[in-house]
């Protein structure tokens, strides 16, 4: 018997008798002989808890994590500090182990947290309606694209090259199913430039990022204007921490704001699980994918929460649903709202400003190095690309040898450098000094 099951020999005998069969095999009578696996699975035997722990620890020790080096990797996920209270709350069995809240009377905790989460996302994005989460950032962009086609039935997406490459790829993969084209608009000087793109009647949505993949803060107004003039929707993928400081895209006319939520109280986890946030205008509410928590009352007039507008969803509408999503990322979104409550109204600004200042410092330090240039001069919040003139491989190798991961290599001679609140001035100085050493 495994440590997770509890059928003793007595149990087995009596249970089979109650069922009225002689053996467990009989219970599988419906399985045709020809397709039965007549051998054990070719997998190892089971192990004790302690042995499994040692194995997983051994695998972990063969990764170089952000705890093992001074890492300037970002490009979509960030080594942000996760406050201890987030862990202590999301590891409570009451949040960790229940299913999607199909029985609201015994799910008020999760449902109210979703409602609070939706309120916070609505505040950050500047849009009135948020769902309770989608899988992650890039597929949130794709889901927004699908909403756009459902909304206006047009056949083409115009996507800024400043949108995260994984998002563009994901959109492209799914757009195949919708038989739609994805046209990418290159960046000029690090920012989206629509001159030379004609936004015709066939454009379903213009898709942007804020800040964009190169860290640049985009001037959204003219872009939104152009798209709306063509009757297209505007979708913007935003970094939620940057939104602590930046104008809310919703306030600038963007119709759908999505993004990657990892940086809000979620671990790196080698890329997941995290969550994608998804917010829209009132006009689009009935086409939103996934769960939405709504406020209501019970028989006794007590305030309560339920999953609402379910007629959008697969379990009710089936082939007419606005999305096939079912299990999403509730626990990660919970971490998100707990984290945002922890940051708070002023903390959100203080954190973003700290990042802006340290990033400006890092940018200046690196720019000052002969052999290093900034790829663009747009305003940035927490991330920026540098161009290295000289032996790039050797430069990176020298950094790694000194316990520094200098950033994500986005081209032969470019690195995208991300600054989180865990990277101190001392870390930044070490990065600059080490690169300088390598180049001279």
């Amino acid at each position, binding site marked *: 018997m495994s440590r997770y099951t509890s059928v003793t020999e007595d149990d087995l005998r009596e249970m089979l008798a109650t069922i009225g069969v002689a053996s467990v095999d009989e219970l599988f009578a419906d399985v045709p002989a020809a397709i039965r696996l007549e051998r054990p699975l070719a997998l190892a035997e089971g192990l004790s808890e302690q042995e499994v722990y040692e194995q997983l620890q051994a695998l972990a020790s063969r990764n170089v994590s952000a705890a093992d080096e001074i890492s300037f990797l970002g490009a979509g996920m960030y080594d942000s500090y996760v406050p201890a209270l987030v862990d202590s709350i999301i590891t409570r069995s009451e949040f960790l182990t229940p299913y999607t809240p199909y029985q609201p009377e015994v799910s008020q905790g999760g449902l109210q947290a979703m409602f609070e989460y939706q*309120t916070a996302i609505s505040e950050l994005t500047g849009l009135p309606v948020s769902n309770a989460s989608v899988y992650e950032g890039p597929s949130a962009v794709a889901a927004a694209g699908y909403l756009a086609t459902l909304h206006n039935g047009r056949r083409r997406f115009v996507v800024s090259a400043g949108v995260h490459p*994984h998002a563009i790829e994901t959109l492209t993969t799914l757009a195949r199913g919708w038989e739609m084209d994805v046209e990418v608009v290159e960046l000029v000087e690090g920012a989206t430039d629509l001159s030379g793109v004609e936004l015709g009647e066939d454009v379903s949505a213009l898709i942007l990022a804020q800040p964009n993949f190169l860290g640049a803060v985009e001037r959204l107004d003219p872009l939104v204007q152009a798209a709306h003039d063509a009757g297209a929707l505007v979708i913007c993928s935003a970094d939620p921490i940057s939104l602590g400081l930046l104008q809310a895209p919703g306030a600038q006319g963007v119709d759908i704001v999505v993004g990657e939520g990892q940086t809000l109280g979620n671990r790196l986890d080698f890329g997941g699980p995290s969550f994608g946030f998804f917010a829209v205008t009132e006009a689009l509410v009935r086409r939103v994918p996934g769960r939405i928590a709504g406020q209501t009352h019970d028989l006794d007039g007590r305030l309560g929460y339920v999953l609402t507008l379910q007629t959008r969803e697969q379990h009710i509408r089936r082939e007419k649903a606005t999305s096939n999503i079912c299990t999403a990322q509730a626990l990660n979104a919970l971490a998100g709202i707990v984290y945002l409550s922890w940051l708070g109204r002023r903390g*959100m600004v203080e954190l973003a400003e700290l990042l802006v200042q340290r990033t400006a410092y890092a940018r200046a330090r690196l720019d000052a190095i002969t052999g290093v240039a900034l790829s663009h001069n747009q305003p940035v919040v927490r991330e920026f690309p540098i161009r290295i003139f000289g032996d790039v491989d050797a430069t990176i190798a020298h950094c790694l040898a000194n316990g520094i991961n200098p950033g994500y290599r986005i081209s032969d001679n470019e690195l995208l450098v991300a600054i989180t609140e865990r990277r101190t001035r001392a870390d930044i100085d070490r990065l600059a000094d080490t690169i300088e050493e390598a180049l001279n």
Partner: protein
Amino acid sequence: MSTTTQRRARSFIEAADDELTIFDRSRPGRRAFVAPALDVPERPLDELIPAPLRRPEPARLPEVSEPEIVRHYNRLSKRNFDLDTGFYPLGSCTMKHNPKLHERVAALPGHARLHPLQRVEAAQGALELMWRLQHALGEISGLPHVSLQPSAGSHGELAGVLLTRAYHEDRGEHRTKILTPDTAHGTNPATVTMAGYELVKIGTDAYGNVDIDDLRAKASDDVACLMLTNPSTLGLFEPQIEEIAQIVHSVGATLYYDGANLNAIMGICRPGDMGFDIVHFNLHKSFTQPHGGGGPGAGPIAVSERIEPFLPRPQVIRRSGGGEAGGAGAADSYALDYERPKSIGRLRGFQGNYGVFVRSYAYICSLGAPGLREVSEVAVLNANYLLARLREERVLEYLPAAYERLCMHEFVLSGAPMKRDLGIRTLDLAKRLLDHGVHPPTVYFPLIVDEALLIEPTETETRETLDRFATLMAEILREAAEDPEIARGAPYATPVRRLDEAGAARRPVVRQEL
């Protein structure tokens, strides 16, 4: 109400401020966050980010201290029912025990603080874990080629249908229809539409099996795929699965396996051996990732040779250094392969829900081959035992089994007679269960069964728990026979009673006004 009732608060942990949200608790100036010291020369913000690009006002997030946050969410958590609190036989969801070890290993910094863009040489542990998980899932499904990318079952379905499309297009075929049984889970038809296909429904016969004649009739060469769940959502194994596969393949369509019910057959039979081309797994079901109140999960897919070229990018591959498959492989190394010309491309950011992979891999290590088979044997044993006990308790007189057969890991009852003879609906029964520390089974699914109740006990429940559930069901029916109003008005012991869902949908309030 009697004074005793007046005297009794609903529970000793309920308090006067229970209805407040975290925003209601906000007071200007309170904080839980303290910023790390600014350790660089400060520059005027306007120089760095021009004012027009900035928010005029901070976002109105709550202003609360740490103790308030902890207490608020701690108290909220107590308004949830969960798997560590009681029996949770939610059909089709496989609410099995979530081992605590998994949370520990997933939290190890080497896993939890590993950046997804870390260079592969510095992420060998993670890539090896993923490769080993792929290997295990391939062996369990009998389909050797695995992608871990999809984030959930429905995402795996979408991947599978896009693979089907790519497969047919590659062969110069343009097929337009996809078949699903009328018992299919909602995500199946929704996926069909989302992937640009037309849905065609297949009927179910008197035994709860796929109606073979209907299938044969609808299986034409414009059919791209049949999506099937086996055991079906009725908890029944398709005895004619080989014939079904033959029919589907004979028209050149692919056969897709919805793996949500894999918990019934691990180590006993394999989708690949049944003739399936593509399968998705729900790691948050069969492989015990905690459900988190609606995710995260993971929906890896495994496919046959002919589908393999189209798998998503990137794939985790092993560069053998001489170690044999599954073995330690002294000098093996692992890499991300992007060179897949026929790939459908990416389905999401980065490499998938790695944190989920860690848990499921740990689970497979703990159980091993014998343990996995035992999981399915006990899952099926528990389900059949519970069905038999409900019969003993004469519950089936009001809630007959939808199909008089041995079931697999779950079974469906119909509340129609109960509704007719006792005047309470399946919904009322479900709500009354809430008053007794039990989560109700899945209700009103599958759609083809009137007043359906889909019960999945899972292998991790004790016989005593199953016995208690059987007697509780009988009690509630007896109570309803005396006074149906009690069930109709249930629940009573929950933090809130029945909620006005219609009103919520009519006038949606989906955020708090601040």
